[in-house]
């Protein structure tokens, strides 16, 4: 399957509808030859035709496997709304501000994911878009340790209703959750299971420390059985102090978490991943 490099070569609009198949076939042949001269392409085995599993006896109905080079191509959206101010806009390496954005009189806008107009190509990072989605649909883990859990449930139910801000569905399984709200005193015996919960959560995940006990040990700081702050055993994004904080306090903390996710948009891969327990703990 031959695909054009859409950035360099815009779709040819002047082509006659009656162009013969042989012309098109020649063009494809030429491209294939050009590719074949590249050493990497020469070494690669010819594309293998995979059959659809439900049509074993019909090779023409078989599905074609996508090669790695196809996946890397940009998504091309057919442009039906505007024409570029300069025909060489994309081919001539000109900045986006003098092309379609000038046409639509939105020069103050940059050509990024925030732009919601019709674009031929959306040049963005998947993480930018995904983080926006993540921030507005936080799924906390329903794991209460002690007193704060009651206020966490109060924040989720009728009077305070966290659902308004897009963070309702309290999941009972760590494998479906985004946010671990550690609500209540963390004891040394519970520290192991809690770290295991944290490590079971899939990777875009955040941690909110709710209550004084989880922030610093709180009123049990001097106890022999209490971990003085959960940041000793796992990374924490937002601290919500209070003994216990009001439900409004927790909601404010979760809104701060949304803000934090949006500000760090696209920087998720920079964050430390993997085992969160430092050596020597």
């Amino acid at each position, binding site marked *: 399957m031959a695909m054009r490099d859409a950035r360099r070569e815009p779709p040819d609009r002047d082509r006659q509808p009656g162009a013969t198949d042989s012309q098109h076939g020649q063009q494809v042949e030429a491209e294939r030859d050009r590719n074949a001269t590249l050493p990497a392409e020469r070494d690669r085995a010819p594309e293998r035709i995979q059959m659809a599993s439900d049509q074993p006896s019909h090779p023409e109905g078989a599905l074609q496997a996508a090669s790695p080079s196809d996946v890397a191509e940009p998504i091309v959206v057919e442009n039906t709304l505007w024409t570029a101010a300069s025909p060489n806009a994309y081919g001539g390496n000109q900045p986006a501000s003098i092309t379609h954005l000038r046409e639509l009189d939105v020069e103050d806008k940059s050509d990024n994911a925030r732009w919601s107009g019709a674009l031929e190509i959306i040049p963005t990072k998947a993480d930018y878009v995904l983080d926006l989605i993540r921030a507005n649909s936080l799924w906390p883990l*329903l*794991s*209460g*340790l*002690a*007193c704060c*859990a*009651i*206020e966490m*449930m*109060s924040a989720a*139910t*009728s*009077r*305070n209703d966290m659902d308004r801000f897009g963070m309702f569905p309290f999941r*009972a399984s*760590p494998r479906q959750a985004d946010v671990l709200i550690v609500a*209540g*005193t963390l*004891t*040394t*015996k*519970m*520290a*192991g*299971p*809690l*770290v*295991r*919960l944290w490590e079971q959560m899939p990777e875009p995940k955040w941690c909110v420390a709710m209550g004084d006990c989880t922030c610093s040990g709180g*009123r*049990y700081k*001097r*106890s*022999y*059985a*209490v971990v003085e702050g959960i940041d000793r*055993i796992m990374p924490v994004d937002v601290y919500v102090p209070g*003994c*216990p904080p*009001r439900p409004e306090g927790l909601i404010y903390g979760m809104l701060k978490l949304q803000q934090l996710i949006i500000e760090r948009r696209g920087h998720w891969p920079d964050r430390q991943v993997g085992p969160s*327990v430092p050596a020597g*703990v």
Partner: protein
Amino acid sequence: MTADATRIRSLDDPTLFVDTPATIYDAVPPYPPRSEREAEFYHLRDGELLINLGPQHPSTHGVLRVVLKIDGERVVDLDPVLGYLHRGVEKICENGDWHHAISNCDPLEYVASMFSEAMPVLACEKLLDLEVPRRAEYIRVLAWELNRIASHALFVGWLALDLGGLTPILYSFIERDEIVEMLAALTGQRLLFNYLRIGGVNGDLNHEFMSRLGDWMSHAAEQLDNNQKLLNENEIFVRRTKGLGTLDRETALRLCMTGPPLRATGIPYDVRRAHPYSVYPELEFRIPTREEGDSYARYQLHLDEARESIHIIDQVLHQMPDGPVMAQIPRLIRPRPGRAWIAIESPRGQYGCFAISDGSDQPFRLRIRDPSYFNLQAVGVLTPGNLIADTMAIMASLDPIMGGIDK
């Protein structure tokens, strides 16, 4: 160790890595059996399987861990593992003075902390032979009964939630938040009130509390009836709780159970009536009981008690005397050397405290008797033979609070 053993982190100690067979590492402790009971429990017969319930499980009301031995969908045996919320409250109380003990005992029973914070207060007053002003006693009873209703409202919601119904807990929290906001106007805190003081209470009733209380009293009974309709006529709820976890009187007494689980078997034991304290002898109320002793009876009993509490609050508001709310006591309290036992009726049963004073300003020993701990023991008697899903219904109907169990 066999070749397929895996190196995993111990559940009990995060610094400890143990070699355990990976297939059953969740349930089997990483040490050899310490008793005959443990050896028998962890010896699996053909077709039996060990699974973990908790410590993180929405139905365990905190961080209780129960190792279930199951055969198919039936629970054969179970082994509760406690201590995941052990905060060393009793030891901390010995290190501060008597006033500090009030706020340290607060989070023991965190759904009804007005009761657990009364422990050092009443024990110290008994050691001091202190006369508490009558208005303070009435305010205490008012706060206790309000907190009892809030706790019972949550019980109903949790029971339904553990059976798979989300709606009732939304209504429970409406009522609970109304009461808790009212108490916050009185005490300044929603959950851990820290309101009772040795010799009285922290502050007199204020205008905001009284206006909120008046609003609530005007529709409290009606709201209770409405919430009750959600579950009483729900066929799924009734069929899943009726006849489930039936407890007989002898077992209940043998396990030292108190509170609603005991009264649901027909024994009218209530500390407010059996060993009267505060101004309860001056108030009229009845002790509701049920004969069946199953989960449904325990649920019904909680609703009856909430109605009685509304009745008590009504009387308290009519009989409330004027006067001070704090006794004249020195700031530094040194009770005489001696021992004192006090008990009150919390929403979960007899909440007791055994205090020893050595004559200093600190308690020498403060032993808390939490009813949840004794009520929870019934899970071991009631659950075997039932389905796994019914374990939740039984456990929720006993209403354990892990803060008091693990202390």
